[in-house]
Every structure is written in structure tokens, then in C-alpha cells.
């Protein structure tokens, strides 16, 4: 294995496999299992067309996750920028060749598979930012000029995703990136300053930059209830489904809102609603509990790492995962505008599943290589 450096030779593949946190894998499989069950129900009690394909993807994705976990963390470090740039290229390619799905350009055909680069970039951005910050000193981070490069790294994908247009994902990428800035130690006042600047920019941008149709679009985006037959209808039906589920739900395969098609997108964005309708608050809280468990696991894996790159990657993956979960569930409960966001591991969807498992692969990699110390310069090939 050329990927394994000499000094780590004692870490054979077998040992590494042993090192993998299998209980975490089991937890992930459990959540995916909930997804299979819900997709089975969404198809009216059949594995086709969603559940079976989701299982296959999860199988492939899990293997990839293990493989990613076994790759030396320094290799990830070394190729972080290249991977990031590659994903940016894909994202830019969407602009040119991407096909339109659900009213926005999101997909790109790689010949054998359709991928959604905006999903992939969520993880690759974490790698890139972690690589940038892994060797920084506390004083470095306090300098504004030092932050210009990572800011550019963050703004590029956000801009490209916005162009698709996919406001939801763009904001999610932005927030994930900002979280990494925060974890990297950027001073709190900078966040406050940028926050204030952003808020004060809203009015002039609204008044002088945006065109009427753009404003209109933004307004519907932010307040779907103003469009009661469109997005507002979906949220209302989702709330009805949730509420009518009650404490223990209507039973597996017995959700009337879902099965009579009152609930839109029940196999993708609104799958949590379906779960909560059929299994009630108990089922909903159960799934949220499983997610929390993943988050806490991720937290401890990140803290346990003896290298800063690993910590940042670990917490970055946790952050991306958390925002995905939170935005989706808050959205179906009517707490956030509907922005087209799948529920991690559960919603039907190939790229999201594979990307997430890629992320968890990195998290596991961090755990497997938790005792690897990485000194500055490692990224350039000097171990």
C-alpha cells in the first residue's frame, strides 16, 4: 500500500479495520434502516421503486465509507485542495451542461451516474477549510488577511450554488463553512461584525440591486404561506400529517395523509413527516434521538483526535450533518421555509446518501487515525 507511509506500517489494513468504530457504523445503518422502512411505506408497502434502490446505494456507500476510513488521514490532507477544486469544477460544469430538475440546475451526468455537485461540495469544502486551518496558530486566525483565502474558498461554491439557483443548499454550505471558521478560532467579534454588515446590506441591496421578479421570488422563498396553493399547501399538509399522528402514530403503512398523497414529496423532503404520522411523536423523537447520538459520537471522535486536521474535519462533518437534519425537520414542521432539503440517510436520493457516507467515511478515518500526529508541512508531503 503506497498510501501507507513507512512509519505507520504497523497500522495494517486488518488492524485499521479493527480500529473502525463499528458501533458508529451500526448506528448509521440503523438510521438508514428507518429510511428503508419509510421508503417501503411510501411506495405503498413495496420495496420498489425506492426502498430497494436505496438499500443498494447504502450498501455501495457503506463499502466506500469503510474504504475512505482506511485511507490514511494524511493522504486526505494532501489531496484536500485537489478534491475541493475537482468538486468546484463539477459545480461549475452544472452551469454549462447541467440538466434542470425541480426547476433548478442541480444535476450533472458523469456518463455512468447522475450526481449533484452541490451535495459533494459540502464535504469537500470541509476538507479544504480543515487543510487551510490545520496548521494555523491562534494568532494567525486573528488576522483578517489570513482569513481572505478561506473566505474565498467558502464564497466560490456558495456563489455557484446560488446561481443554480439553490438558495437552501447555498445557505447550508455557507453556515457549515462559518461553523468551521468558528471552530478554527476566528474571533467572535468578526462574526458579529459580518452579521451586522450583512443585515445592514439587506435594505440597499433590496432597494437598488434586486429586480422586481427577483424580490418576488425571494419573498415566496422566505414566506411560502403567501402562496397557499404552492409551498404553503405542502407545509399545511405536512403539519396536518404530523399533528394527526399524535403520540404513537397511525401505524406502519397506515398514514392517511401520506398514502392518500396529501403529503407531497413523501419519499424525499417530507419523509420525516411520514415517519411522524405513522409512528407519532414517539417515532419522531426516536429518530431525532438517533441523530443526536450520531452528533455526540462525532463530537467525541473529533475531540479524541490528536491532530487538528482530524478535529476540524470531524466537527465539520458533524456540522454539515446537523444542519441538514435540523433544516429538514424544522422545514417539515413549518418552522423554516421549504427549501428542498433531504433528510440525511433517510430521504430517497443517491448523491445525498453517498456524499453523507463519504463524510462519515472521513469521520471514521479521523477515528481510525486518531493518534496520528500531524505537524505543519505534512500536507506538502513532509511527514
Amino acid at each position, binding site marked *: 500500500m503506497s498510501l501507507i507511509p513507512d512509519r505507520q506500517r504497523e497500522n495494517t489494513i486488518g488492524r485499521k479495520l479493527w480500529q473502525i468504530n463499528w458501533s458508529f457504523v451500526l448506528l448509521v445503518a440503523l438510521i438508514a434502516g428507518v429510511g428503508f422502512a419509510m421508503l417501503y411505506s411510501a411506495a405503498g408497502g413495496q420495496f420498489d421503486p425506492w426502498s430497494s434502490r436505496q438499500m443498494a446505494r447504502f450498501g455501495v456507500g457503506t463499502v466506500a465509507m469503510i474504504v475512505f476510513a482506511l485511507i490514511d488521514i494524511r493522504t486526505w490532507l494532501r489531496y484536500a485542495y485537489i478534491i475541493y477544486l475537482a468538486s468546484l469544477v463539477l459545480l461549475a460544469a452544472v452551469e454549462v451542461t447541467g440538466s434542470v430538475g425541480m426547476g433548478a440546475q442541480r444535476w450533472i451526468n458523469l456518463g455512468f451516474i447522475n450526481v449533484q455537485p452541490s451535495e459533494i461540495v459540502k464535504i469537500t469544502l470541509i476538507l479544504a477549510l480543515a487543510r487551510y486551518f490545520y496548521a494555523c*496558530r*491562534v494568532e494567525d486566525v486573528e488576522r483578517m488577511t489570513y482569513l481572505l483565502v478561506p473566505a474565498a474558498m467558502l464564497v466560490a461554491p456558495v456563489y455557484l450554488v446560488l446561481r443554480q439557483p439553490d438558495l437552501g443548499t447555498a445557505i447550508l454550505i455557507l453556515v457549515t463553512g462559518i*461553523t468551521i471558521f*468558528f*471552530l478554527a*478560532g476566528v474571533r467572535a467579534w468578526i462574526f458579529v461584525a459580518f452579521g451586522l454588515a450583512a443585515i445592514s446590506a439587506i435594505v440597499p441591496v433590496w432597494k437598488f440591486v434586486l429586480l422586481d421578479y427577483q424580490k418576488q421570488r425571494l419573498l415566496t422563498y422566505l414566506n411560502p404561506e403567501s402562496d397557499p396553493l404552492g409551498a404553503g399547501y405542502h407545509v399545511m*399538509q405536512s*403539519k*396536518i*400529517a*404530523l*399533528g*394527526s*399522528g*399524535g*403520540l404513537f402514530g397511525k401505524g406502519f403503512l397506515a398514514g*392517511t*395523509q401520506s398514502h*392518500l*398523497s*396529501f403529503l407531497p414529496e413523501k419519499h424525499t423532503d417530507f419523509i420525516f413527516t411520514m415517519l*411522524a404520522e405513522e409512528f*407519532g*411523536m414517539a417515532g*419522531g*423523537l426516536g429518530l*431525532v434521538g438517533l*441523530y*443526536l447520538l450520531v*452528533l*455526540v459520537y462525532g*463530537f467525541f471522535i*473529533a*475531540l479524541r483526535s490528536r491532530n*487538528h486536521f482530524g*478535529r*476540524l474535519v470531524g*466537527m465539520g462533518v458533524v*456540522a454539515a450533518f*446537523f444542519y441538514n437534519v*435540523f433544516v429538514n*425537520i*424544522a422545514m417539515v*414542521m413549518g*418552522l423554516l421555509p421549504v427549501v428542498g432539503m433531504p433528510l440525511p440517510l433517510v430521504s430517497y436520493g443517491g448523491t445525498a446518501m453517498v456524499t453523507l457516507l463519504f463524510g462519515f467515511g472521513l469521520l471514521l478515518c479521523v477515528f481510525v487515525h486518531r493518534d496520528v500526529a500531524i505537524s505543519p508541512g505534512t500536507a506538502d508531503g513532509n511527514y
Partner: protein
Amino acid sequence: MHRDSDRYRMFSRRAAIFLGGQVLLLSGLGARMYYLQVVEADRYRTLADDNRINLKLLAPPRGLIVDRFGRSLADNRQNYRLILTPENITDLDKTLDRLAAIIPIGPNERQRIAREIKRRRRFNPIIIRENLEWKKVARIEVNAPDLAGIGIDVGESRYYPGGAAMAPILGYVSAVSEKERTGDPLLELPGFRIGKAGIEKTQDLALRGAAGTSQVEVNAFGREIRELQRIEGQPGAEARLTIDYELQRMTAARLGDKAASAVVMDIHTGEILAMASTPSFDSNAFKRGFSRAEWRDLISNPRAPLNNKAVVGQYAPGSTFKMIVALAALEKGVITPQSRFFCKGEMELGDSTFHCWKRTGHGSMDLMNGITQSCDVYFYEVAGRTGIDRISAMARRFGLGARLGIELPGEKNGLMPTRKWKKRTKGVSWQQGETVLAGIGQGFLLTTPLQLAVMISRLANGGRAVEPSILRQLVPFGVPEPEPRELHQFPEIDVNKNHLRIVGRAMARVTNSPIGTAYRARIKNPEFRMAGKTGTVQVRRISKAEREQGVRKNSELEWRDRDHALFVGYGPVRAPRYAVSVVVEHGGGGSSTAAPIARDILTEAQRRDPSRGRAAYLGRRRQPAGADEG
């Protein structure tokens, strides 16, 4: 490593803050879940059920209408409807083109179909045509493979076996108009029909029945998934009429295409055995709808085919009123049966001259002859002595001048004028000349053929205030055969029985004495002998000039200027049972036109004897009027 430990502390602190934030936000989600799924659960459960459960009304079958012997007068037949389901159609124009080869579809109809498709959900069928003939149904079924989205469904539609003969009584049903909506959801069912005339209208609520409901589960697009619960409706009650369908048919046929009406009534029970009004319309025609031209013809026809003339038509009673005048005079005592007046063919009163129908005059007349020969001058004299108020009061006792409350819509009051009435409505005093005219049933007086039938019944039944009815019984669905409605004894009219007998005898002579005005229309069969009275009502003013040149004959006049021909009668004379009234609008003379019709109807009524077995004792118990006529 010191630097790293600083950084590690910072990182772990911030990571912990971040984790704390995550836990907080997820708890927020949990709280929201609690709010939606526990606090507000009931509300959302109701909303979810509202979403998925549609309550559908099931139209109950309309109640049947049968005649007194149980023969069907109105029932429900299968109605083959051509329906189009938009969601199954790929090319509307092409499909309609193909369909047009079987059933003509005009450009207007195409537009209507296109409009309806736009208005409704794509899986809701649209009715293209109703009451398809079986042949068309078969052709469409054969061509089904080429007509995707076109189908046949079977509904119910009202069928009237009696057609035009029964239409004035039964009326018809048709679609509910905007104004008729009462909020009853049943009325909003597509294709639901309610009674618009006749018995169908007056008994509509009973015939309608109660709607059933079907709870169906629907999906978000309104497509029905399954039926959850079904409560069958209650079919409408069966309306049993007093009509004898055979007699009705014969009566209507006898009137033919004249603008006429006839009522046959049981003088004891008040049951209407036949009530014909011609020309008529076909109730069945209403289900296919009329073209604009057809409808215009129907409503603007001067012979008023849509009216039931027996209850809506108002005519001066003419000479048929003379019995009432006689009774009023006898009661007041201004004449005795033996009082005589001389008829010289006319009578002067002030500046006016009142003519008798017999220009040469009848000579000396007593009451018996006055009625038998229908002498006008005799009754001018009598009426003048009796006074209008007494005449009108007597008329009212015999059922004239006020609605009788028959179970049919639009019944008219008629008019029996009094001095007060004239003062009140016209503002001028009553003239003696008007009383004189009232003596021969003309002037302000108005009666309906039904009232005339009641009048003659009360004259024939010995002075009982019989009231007419056409609805024998309403039998709710599912009820075991009910007891027949009890016949109640109608109260006596306060009138001298002797006077009634005298008048009855006179009426028997009208038809049976060679000098009687209706002798030629007598019933020769001694068992069925008829008594009656003719009436000829002038509808135009005959000018002095015309009188001098010679009054034109009816046959020389325009239809609308001819006299109305009336006849009231009953039979058999020995034990009266059936009364008949006939009014032929602009028919000419009562004796020449109305009396023969009445004879034929009354003969048929007695031959059929539809009241047989029905409380015959009521009639036999009393001394029948005119029984002692020789």
C-alpha cells in the same frame, strides 16, 4: 505542543458550545413535535379526516305515482347517459369527431364540453348527453376501443306512461334552478330533479325521499379510493291518486285538441276521478329538454298547453249558474217554484236591453221550465229580485268563488262579486244591471271547471259540502300496506232540501225532456241517465248594430271570439254518484259542444264505476236528489 494545547482548549470549548447549540435546537424540534402532535393533535386529526373523507349524497329514488287502482302514472326508468372522462382523453377534438359520427355534436356543444373540462377536475366525468336510445348505446359500446374516455353510465330518469293525458295533473320534474336552492345539499347534486308542476310539485318533498350518504376516502386529487361507510337513503313515498287512469285517458281523448277541460268527481267522496286539460304537453319531453323554439311555442300558445285549465282556468259560469240563482231566490222567498215570468226575448232595465238567447222569447216561464229551457229573461227577473249579495253567498256555499284546496299548484279563486267587493276594488257602486247579468252567470263572475264540478256535486249529493281531492294517500316507502284513508262525512250545507230536489228535477229535465237544452245529448241507457245544465258564455260584446243585422253564428267568428261552451252534470239520475264539468274554450254552444262531451265522459265513468266498493253507502243512505224525476 503547548501551542496545540491552547488551540485544543479553544477548539474543545467552541465544539462544546456548538454541541450545546445543537442539543438546544434539536430540543426545540422536540418541543415543536410535542406542540403539533400532543397539544394540537385533535385539531390536526380532524383536519386529516376532513382531508380524506368526502361525504357524498346518494340521491334517493323518487316516489312513484299511481292511480286509484295502482296503475303506474310516474316511475323511474334507466337513463343511459353519455359521459366523458377528461383524464382518459388524449385528443379531445379527435374523440369528439369520432363520437359525432354516432351522435351529432354541434359547435356550441363542443364549446360547452371544453368549458366544463377546464372547470372541473380531470377525473370528474362530464355528461354529454342523457336519455340515449338503446341503439346509440349499443353503437357506442361497439366503438368503445376508438372512444377512449367516453363511457355510458346508467342513472334514473322519470317516466310518465300517461304522457300528455296525465301531464296537467302530474306536472313534470326538471333540474333545480338557482332560485329553488334551499340549502338542502340534495338539491345541489348534479342531475337531481324536482317537481315543477302538478302533483310532482305539490308533493315534491314527500316524493323526494331522504338522501343517503356515502363516506368515501379520497386522495389529495379528489379521486375516490374506497367507500368507508354507506347509509342508504329512503326512497320517496308513493303517491296514490284518486284518478282512474283509464277514465282520464278517455276524457282527455274525448276533449281532443280543443282548448278544453273536464273534471269527473265522486259526488260523495270528492275524489277526482279524471281531470283533463287540453291541449297538453308530454311530461316526458322535459327530461330531454326543449329547443328555444319549442319552448316559445309552448308558453306563447293561446291555448295554454302548460296550464291545467281545470284549476287555473277561470270562466264565467254562464247558465250553469242558474241553479245557484234559483236556490238563492227560493231561499229569500222572492219566488216560489210556481212563480211565473213572461219572456218576450228581451228585458229592458233603464236604458239597457237584456236579451234572451231565444230571440223570439220563451213565453210564460216557471222555475222548472226556466232551468229546463235555460230562459235568460226568467233569471234576469229572478236575479234582480234576489240581489247580488245573496246570490254570491249561495254560490260560495256551493264551492264557488274561493280556492278549494286541491293538491295541485296554482289553483285559482274564481270570483263571486258582492256590492262591497265592487266598491272596494273598483271604487264604484254596484249596478242593478250587473245583478241581472249575474242571473245568467255572466258579468264579473268567474269559476274554475273544478269549482263547477264541486258545485254540481253538492247539488247532486243532497247538499253536502264535499271537497275535492286528487291525492288519495301518500304511502311512505317500506311501510306495510296502510289502511285506506278514512272517508269523512262532509258537513251539510245550510240549504233547503226541498229546493234542492226541485232544482235537481229541473236538471234531470234539461237532458231528458224533449224541450230541455241538452235533450240531444241525453244518455239513453236508463241505468246511466244524466242530469245537468248547459252554459254558453259570450266572450265578446254584441253591438246594437250587429243585433239589428243579425247576430253572427259562432262558426262565422274568429276562434277567440266564439262563445265558451259549458256543461255540468251528474249521473245516474236515480242514485247520483259521478259529477262532471266540461268547459270548452270558444267551443260554441254548451248544448251542442259541451253536453255531448259530458255525456260520453259520464257514460264511461258510470260504465267503469271507479268508485265501486268505495263507501257506496254514503250515497245510498240519503234520498238522492232528483230521484223522483219521472
